[in-house]
């Protein structure tokens, strides 16, 4: 009989290479029954390769995987599922136009006389959700659910196929605080049922919140496995990056200039309500709040990406009427969007083309592109921003998240933007690249630009900002000066009524 502490999954010396790169090198890891095991490491450390091997998307080159004490070969996602290993990807794999119940029982619908037994299926699905104490309309179309609810559907689906190991790839990255709490509660329930959870996250706080043990990966190699209560955050960070980080946020001397951006009573009649604030040159203005508090929407209104119903925007004291992003660009506003792949990058175009997308006029010679100039400009930014790439001809798709983000940044630096809005600038980016992004933000502010940073990471917004505006349900609910900064203060304002 296996006790709660017995190993369910054991990897020994697992290797995986791709042409020219060793993605995993002698990886070892044990996961115990009913534990929440964090897998940490910078981007490119090999986490996703490891996960894909466990879920059958990749096949290991060598090494052994033991599952429930037996050596197994995982050769396909179907087989991983049969063994009892489920993976919940960041991009959820649900059929959006099917109902919740259909998704849970996808491919194994209960049948009656060869036809789908809808009644039975809905009943079974309802019971599953009930056992986890989750309120869910199982006949609702998945498309109509929030991201958090969709995630719950995936988890229930994993449980319903008797998974013993559930892998979650950055499950909280798009959840609000309360949704995250719900997720943690579900994870606790999984634990109680002796289901092991492998939890991948960039948010170190969460590891300390809910994980029992953690395994650190670096450059495809196993660094160590520790019980969470044995390590401190700074130890963990140095395990991840292999160096002591003295400060996560580089210091900066703040020199405030004139007010450059003034927003008065901005509304979109929906998610942004009567928002007013101002920002100065040389200032990094942070926007905190829960996901869905209307911060991104506010920025999109300022940038002209969505139509506003009322409100006034002044730039350097002059009222401007920005109705589309084109006009925002003309007012020297840059917008590093939250979603770099969908909204920032042209993935199959080269880095140099991406960089020159906004300020293409700078590389024209008599209204024709000067490719030599384009290359020089791009190489300049590749050097200045430390973009790691074999050449500026590389297509953006092949870069890591951090480097992609730097390309988006370069796109907005080339046009000499005076006001740069960063929406979640370090989402899904590893610690080292984060630091570099922060340094760039500081340098921009030091050069007299106005910087707005929307961030859902508490540490980030506290660390990078000179002043913080907190939003809740579409309204500005508070403003904190540097000496008032604290997690407590921000959280209280963001949640409200504390």
């Amino acid at each position: 009989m296996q006790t709660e502490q017995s190993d369910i999954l054991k990897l020994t010396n697992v290797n995986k290479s791709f042409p020219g790169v060793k993605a995993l090198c002698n990886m070892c890891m044990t996961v115990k029954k009913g534990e929440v095991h964090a897998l940490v490491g910078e981007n490119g450390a090999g986490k996703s390769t490891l996960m894909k091997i466990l879920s059958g998307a990749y096949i290991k080159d060598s090494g052994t995987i033991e599952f429930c004490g037996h050596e197994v070969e995982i050769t396909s996602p179907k087989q991983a599922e049969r063994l009892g290993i489920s993976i919940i990807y960041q991009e959820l794999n649900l059929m959006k136009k099917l109902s919740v119940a259909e998704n849970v029982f996808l491919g194994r619908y209960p049948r009656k006389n060869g036809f789908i037994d809808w009644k039975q299926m809905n009943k079974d699905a309802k019971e599953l959700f009930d056992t986890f104490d989750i309120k869910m309309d199982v006949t609702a179309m998945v498309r109509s659910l929030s991201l958090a609810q969709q995630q719950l559907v995936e988890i229930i689906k994993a449980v319903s196929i008797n998974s013993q190991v559930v892998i979650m790839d950055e499950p909280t990255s798009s959840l609000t605080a309360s949704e995250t709490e719900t997720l943690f509660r579900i994870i606790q329930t999984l634990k109680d049922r002796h289901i092991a959870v492998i939890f991948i996250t960039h948010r170190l706080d969460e590891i300390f919140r809910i994980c029992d043990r953690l395994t650190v990966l670096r450059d495809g190699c196993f660094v160590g496995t520790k019980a969470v209560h044995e390590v401190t955050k700074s130890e963990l960070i140095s395990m991840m990056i292999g160096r002591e980080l003295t400060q996560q946020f580089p210091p900066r001397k703040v020199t405030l200039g004139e007010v450059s951006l003034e927003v008065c009573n901005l509304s979109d009649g929906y998610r942004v309500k009567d928002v007013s604030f101002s920002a100065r040159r040389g200032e990094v203005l942070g926007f905190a709040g829960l996901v869905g508090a209307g911060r991104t929407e506010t920025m999109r209104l300022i940038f002209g990406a969505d139509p506003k119903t009322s409100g006034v925007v002044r730039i350097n004291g002059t009222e401007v009427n920005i109705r589309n992003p084109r006009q925002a660009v003309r007012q020297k506003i840059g917008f590093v969007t939250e979603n770099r792949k969908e909204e920032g990058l042209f993935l199959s175009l080269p880095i140099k083309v991406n960089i020159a997308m906004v300020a293409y006029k700078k590389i024209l010679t008599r209204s024709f592109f000067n490719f030599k100039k384009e290359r020089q400009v791009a190489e300049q930014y590749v050097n200045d921003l430390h973009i790691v790439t074999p050449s500026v001809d590389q297509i953006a798709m092949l870069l890591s998240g951090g480097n992609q983000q730097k390309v988006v940044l370069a796109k907005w630096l080339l046009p000499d933007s005076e006001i740069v809005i960063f929406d979640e600038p370090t989402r899904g980016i590893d610690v080292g690249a984060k630091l570099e992004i922060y340094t760039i933000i500081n340098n921009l502010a030091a050069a007299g630009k106005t910087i707005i940073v929307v961030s859902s990471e508490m540490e980030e917004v506290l660390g990078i900002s000179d002043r913080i505006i907190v939003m809740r349900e579409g309204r500005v609910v508070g403003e904190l000066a540097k000496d008032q900064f604290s997690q407590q203060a921000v959280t209280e304002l963001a949640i409200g009524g504390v």
Partner: protein
Amino acid sequence: MKAGKENNWGHKIAGIGNSLGAWLIVILMALILSVTTKAFLTPNNIINVVRQISVNAMVALGASFVVLGGEIDLSTGMASTFAGCNAALMMTKLGMPMIPAIIICLVVGVLVGCFTGFIVTILKIPAFIGSLGVQYMVQGATLLLTNSMPISGLSEEFLVLGRGYIANVIPVPTVIMAVFIIIGAIVLKYTPFGRSVISVGENATAARLSGIDVTRTKIAIFAICGFCAAAAGIVQASRLSSGQPASGGDLSLQALAAVYVGGTFKGSMLNTLAGALALGLVNNGLNLMGINPYWQKMALGIIIVLAVLFDQYRIKKSTARK
């Protein structure tokens, strides 16, 4: 990530495929035809091929802009028939001089394109169905104007456009096509407009947030497409010595086939030319070999599928993480 040292066949083929694109198909076909048929490698035949593909290549050039911009246009064939018939009508029935007639037809072509663009961007109807609608509207207009009767009796000077030769060697339609392709290639590669087309096709959301006017760009590509189709239709009318209201039904799809066979996604208009040439060579080769013309359609279909398959393989190989 470092690039791998090993150079397997896949990478080699992808490498060659990347630099040559559809020209590889053209070269291969030309080689095969040179060996298997005696008549292929004669000046007359080569001239014949480049003359035959001219109209299709011109339509395909316009279609390339639309496809690169992430849309599709099924109305080009009928738009060119419309232009050819209109030109013929104006010159014969209205006695209009050639140049103004041509200019009016080209402008009408641009307007038809703008109309399609309007349907797609402002009314937000998917291009496939929107341009299909326009195709039938234009066809109806053509049939109404001509009463479905061919319009002949065109002047000699007009016939030069489709049937003439420069220095008795180079066909005039080929020269017109070459000018179109060269201008198209330059616009696409060297102008901000060309780049907005590519960026809008690649990611319209990101393009908009980068300050590109997506609506205007999309209307412009349809307008260019309409212009090219009209120009091709005028050349075609000249080549047929008449405005043929019943012709052009197949042209939209042939042009799109040239675009896809050419693999214009790589961002060069010369690929479209290669695509048109490849299709032209298939027809020519099968003719020379005396194969039943019904087989030609079959072969054409197979070539289209194979070419796109090869292109996908090439893209997969060249974008795989190395």
